[in-house]
């Protein structure tokens, strides 16, 4: 169902929820986002290495929260402004829900499909590369479009990677 809707949207453009991570801007197709909540207590998972920051209790359901900055290689949040504008974006990966903390949620914008350009080539492939759908320039900002489902699979690889490295 999701796929179909994605296709429909592509014909008339994509609606992106845009958010900020440190000094970078990101966008995720709006239909992928389940909800956006104010920060709530994140509980640390014992023995967890890898990209999961912890878990939250969202109305009785335990949902993991990713260290999205680390996964995407985005600059860390400026500690002076931590708090006020932070939000947790909740997504459904198909394998279950997960969330990630963003520094600010900006707006929902509509961009034409042809405006989304392929991401620039990087020397070495950074982690989370599979999740990058493309980039789009919008009112002077570079918005990096990401597919959260890829983020999770990328994340799992990373998790296994970290685990096998420490083994």
């Amino acid at each position, binding site marked *: 169902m999701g796929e179909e809707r994605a296709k429909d949207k592509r014909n008339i453009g994509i609606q992106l929820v845009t958010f900020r991570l440190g000094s970078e801007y990101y966008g995720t197709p709006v239909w992928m986002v389940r909800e956006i909540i104010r920060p709530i207590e994140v509980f640390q998972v*014992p023995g967890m290495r890898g990209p999961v920051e912890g878990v939250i209790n969202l109305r009785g359901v335990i949902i993991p929260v990713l260290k999205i900055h680390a996964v995407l290689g985005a600059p860390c949040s400026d500690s002076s402004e931590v708090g006020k504008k932070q939000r947790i974006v909740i997504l459904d990966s198909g394998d279950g829900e*997960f969330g990630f903390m963003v520094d600010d949620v900006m707006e929902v914008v509509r961009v034409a499909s042809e405006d989304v350009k392929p991401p620039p080539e990087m020397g070495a492939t950074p982690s989370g590369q599979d999740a990058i759908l493309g980039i789009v320039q919008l009112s002077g900002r570079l918005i990096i479009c990401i597919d959260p489902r890829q983020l999770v699979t990328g994340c799992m690889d990373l*998790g296994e990677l970290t685990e096998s490295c420490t083994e």
Partner: protein
Amino acid sequence: MKLNDYKALYASEAEEILQALENGVLGLEGDADYASCVDDLFRNAHNLKGISGAMGYDFVVEASHSLENVLDRLRREEIKISPSKINLLLHAIDLLRKLVQYAVDGGEKIDSENLLGEILVSLSPMCVKPGGDGRVREGEDTIENEGNCDTDEFDKEADSEGAEGEASKTEEQRSAELPAPEETALSAGDGFSPGITSIRIDIERLDRLMDLVGELMIGRIRLGGIAHEQGNKQLLNEIESSGRLITEIQREVMEARLVPVEQVFQRFKRLVRDISSELGKKVELRTVGAEIGLDRTVLESMIDPFVHLIRNAIDHGIETPEEREALEKDPCGKISLSARRERNFVILEIADDGQGIDLAQVKKKSSPIDITESGDTDLSEEELCRILATPGFSTSRTIGRYSGRGMGMNIVKKVVDSFGGSMRLQSEPGNGTVVSLQLPVNLSIIKALLFRVRNDIHALPIEYVRETTRMEMASLRSYRGHKMLETKEGFIPVVKPWEVLGLPSDQEDIRYVKVIIVDTGEGSVGLLVNRIIGQQEIVIKGLPELLRGINGISGATILGSGKISFIWDPRVLFQGRCLDEFNKEAVVLEN
């Protein structure tokens, strides 16, 4: 009830019958009482015909009818059972299963006719008259069968005068000859005999009930917290007594959800037969403790692992009959599946009397994969287990149909881990291998000791707690870089959970510490904590997919305060990798 509900009911009933048929046929092969076996088979075939008729699935009626005919002849001992006939019967049951599936799910009509034809063909060798003493009526029937079965035409006339007419007629004959089993079959078919003692409930309904009880318990814990804060004694008492009721309900629902292990064990009879005959080995399967109940989710998930374990046992464990004879063993290998309950766990065990695991071979193969080589030739049980569960590890040089890819044990371990269970492996060269899987009886609610580490609350299943104590930090002794605690049983290692959690310590300079003495059954360990909160019943919530398979954590729970608390599995934590890591760290530090 809607038609679909009936269909679902039919499907599950039919599957049960087919399973019983399959087992019955396999029973003919063993030394089970032949006559009662055939009677059971006949009754089952008859039941299938009955329920299919009620649903209007004529082709299933027809197929089960011809099966019934064959079984009837077996019962009269007009034909003798033989391995090839058993194969034919099994084949017919497989086809019958497909037919039932078609009836329920729908599909191409042609399929059903082809299948029906196939069933009749597969049964036809048994319909041939053995001599002159066959009944005339049945003789005609068989000829008709044989004549028509390969053209897909066999239907209408055989159906109208064959199935119905014949069925009623022979039933009369049969009941005259063999009244006892037939009566049971009839009364079962009639349905409402007085005193129905059990009903079928959709498992989803039970699951829902379980969830609700879980929520109820969380609610009660919350209420208790509020009453405690207010210091309202009367309210606390009321909550206490309703709490007991909730616990009672919970226990009942939980018991209702348990499924006897039998339901999974019996599926393996066929598997063992198929694999062993293909590999040219003789294997006898025994089951023990099949009546033990286990959570449905856990049990269902164990099917795959057990398929792998059985394949391993037959392919790697059991030798060929010739090899066995040379070794002065019974040419027929034995595999036993057993279940037993230990505290809040069920132990599922598969044991074979084959050649055991070739330790030298494992050692040799493991060196490129496993870096923690200790140099000596002996592998400890845990090491062996860990190596065998490494993905891609196989001692087999070639990839066969049944094994050799090296994924089997890894799959087993993953599934077991995901339920907070554990796997043990014991092997004795020449005498066989035993794999034990320890699984929680229930996934839902357990008693746990809650403790605080820094700001987080953690839970430890109460079965593992031997005692809790308060002691002076200075009384800890140091042994080769490890803090040790002196107990009545001697020195035991002390684990600092904040180190496991990767947190800086805030306790090193504290004079007194709380210690939970954890008994894992394989050894004891002292767990240093900031505060011991107390014993509580907790509702286990499944871990999100991303968090599965974390070492030392078997689940999570949401406390009355809304805080998430993780449930520790000390066995993995203290016996497995974590201790290894401490050791490694210690070694690194020393260097």
